[in-house]
């Protein structure tokens, strides 16, 4: 029997979030294991054009649930609409991005439709005849492998885990428009605030030097700034915990809830590398990581791994670069 995959397409201001192509890559991998039909779901206001475009660009069928007046993501509404959709028609896999909205509605949705749920999926493969999904645990130090059972599976995919796949689109899929007319009064959207990272120097920087908990104390952040200062067009960054501690402003934060950086060089100092942080740096061309813990997950994504105390290492590095420059790099 042909299985069915649903993909929830996120969109913002009339544009589809390109993460859809990573979800399609994951779906294609599942298709290589069992025969599957893919359907895309779009929820929002005035989504006719977007849905047609999506069916053209991907070649897949699109179900477009129009919600008049829906201005922004609303977890309660998404959960209700998707629960109705998937109670009415059975899908074996329901795939969403592990975004701040996907991780919000997916677990509740799985309960609502008696499905199981795996969040933050990084890989899919067959093992012992079972379709298995891998995800990080323990701050990325371990990977856990889950086997799919009979029940439908709601999953969220960790951004950056699959190479985007752009399907051959000889024939557009069919668009099925629907209108949601229910009322939502349990949860009402009242407005939005812009990101503190918008327009920050992290966006334009070619080199980013970031500090994390491993720098030990607030005062040591100056070494991060000092190291960044050695490179032209550079900016100092930070991991979330040290922003939470109040050591550094949130506008310096790199990661899923901060700036998503893609500099030429990223230097992570005293950052263990939780998936939320790594998700924000994978676009970097070259990554150097300095951490005392040789098992730190940041070393899994680094090009150069240095097991050292970050502050001590930076001090020596800065001193050596300054000396080297003063002498025209003689003997270094």
């Amino acid at each position, binding site marked *: 029997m042909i299985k069915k995959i649903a993909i929830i397409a996120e969109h913002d201001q009339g544009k589809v979030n390109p993460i859809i192509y990573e979800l399609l890559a994951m779906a294609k991998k599942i298709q290589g294991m069992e025969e599957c039909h893919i359907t895309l779901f779009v929820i929002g206001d005035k989504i006719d054009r977007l849905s047609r475009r999506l069916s053209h660009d991907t070649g897949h069928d699109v179900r477009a649930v129009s919600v008049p007046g829906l201005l*922004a*993501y609303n*977890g*309660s509404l998404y959960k209700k609409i998707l629960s109705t959709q998937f109670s009415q028609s059975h899908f074996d896999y329901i795939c969403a991005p592990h975004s*701040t909205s996907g*991780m*919000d*509605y997916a*677990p509740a*949705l*799985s*309960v609502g439709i008696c*499905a*199981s*749920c795996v*969040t933050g999926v990084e890989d899919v493969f067959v093992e012992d005849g079972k379709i298995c999904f891998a995800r*990080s*645990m*323990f*701050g990325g*130090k*371990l*990977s*856990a*492998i889950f*086997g799919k*059972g009979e*029940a439908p599976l709601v999953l969220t995919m960790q951004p950056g885990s699959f190479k985007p796949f752009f399907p051959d689109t000889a024939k557009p899929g069919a668009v099925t428009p629907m209108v949601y007319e229910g009322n939502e*009064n349990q*949860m*009402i*959207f*009242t407005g*939005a*605030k*812009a*990101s*503190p*990272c918008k327009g920050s120097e992290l966006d334009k920087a070619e*080199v980013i030097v970031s500090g994390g908990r491993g720098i030990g104390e607030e005062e040591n952040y100056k070494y991060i700034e000092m190291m960044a200062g050695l490179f032209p067009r550079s900016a100092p960054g930070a991991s979330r915990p040290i922003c939470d501690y*109040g050591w550094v402003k949130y506008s310096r*934060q790199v990661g899923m*809830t*901060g700036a998503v950086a893609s500099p*030429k060089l990223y230097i992570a100092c005293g950052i263990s590398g939780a998936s939320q942080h790594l998700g924000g740096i994978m676009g970097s061309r070259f990554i*150097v990581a300095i951490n005392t813990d040789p*098992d730190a*997950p940041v*070393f*899994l994504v680094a*090009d*150069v*791994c*240095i097991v*050292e105390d970050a502050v001590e290492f930076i001090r020596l*590095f800065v001193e050596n*670069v300054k000396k*080297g420059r003063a002498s025209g*790099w003689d003997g*270094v």
Partner: protein
Amino acid sequence: MKILVCVKHVMDSESKIRINDSGTWVEHLSSTRFEMNPFDAYAIEEALRIKERFSESCIHVITVGRDDAQETLRRALGMGADEGIHIVDNRTGYRPPSLAASWIASWAKNKGYGLILTGIMSSDEMNAQTGPMIAEMLSIPFCSAVISEKISDDKKMVSVERETEGGARDMFDIELPSVLTIQTGINLPRYPALSKVLRAKKKELEIIDSSVFDKNATGVALQRIRCPEKKRKGIFLDGTRQEKVDQLIDILKKKALLQ
């Protein structure tokens, strides 16, 4: 207002991780330390701040876990929570979040909680599922990644800001009762006060054996755990600190990243 805070007793994130012989879960060594899930500390702190505003509030903390999970409950009591509830489950392996959520939901049903709080995720399994699942099981609204909350004076509604990509925020008015999962940085969790710690030590906890609840977990099953695969072919630098500095300078100069 009655507030329920769901907390988890987890392996200290600095502890050495070792996979057990059967490859099915982590092994707890004698050196392994445990702590309150750091994310949950923000949920407790937020509950305490609500109680400062609505002094008639009472804060219950609940955990699902082995006998030693009581340490985390006692820490919460030491921070200022009023009562502790322990659903005892002495399994050493993986407990799916849907199971913990269903037990907490069964317990919380009809107990009159106006607000249920928990951390955005646990630092060990990082599923971020338990909170939203509890809400759905209780048929009440929820909001995850809450970075600011204000309960209305009539306690019928909570205005929240939830964090989205890049640290932007969406604002909502949500009907109470509801479940909020709390994002880090919303507050600075306090340390337990000595006077409260002494009282917390003697405080009687409500102990419930998990066998009274349904044990059926849903379809997806943990097969095994493994060390993660390297995503880039990174090299580890060898030698003394000075030698590593020299090597790094050399690499960066060759790549024209340093002049």
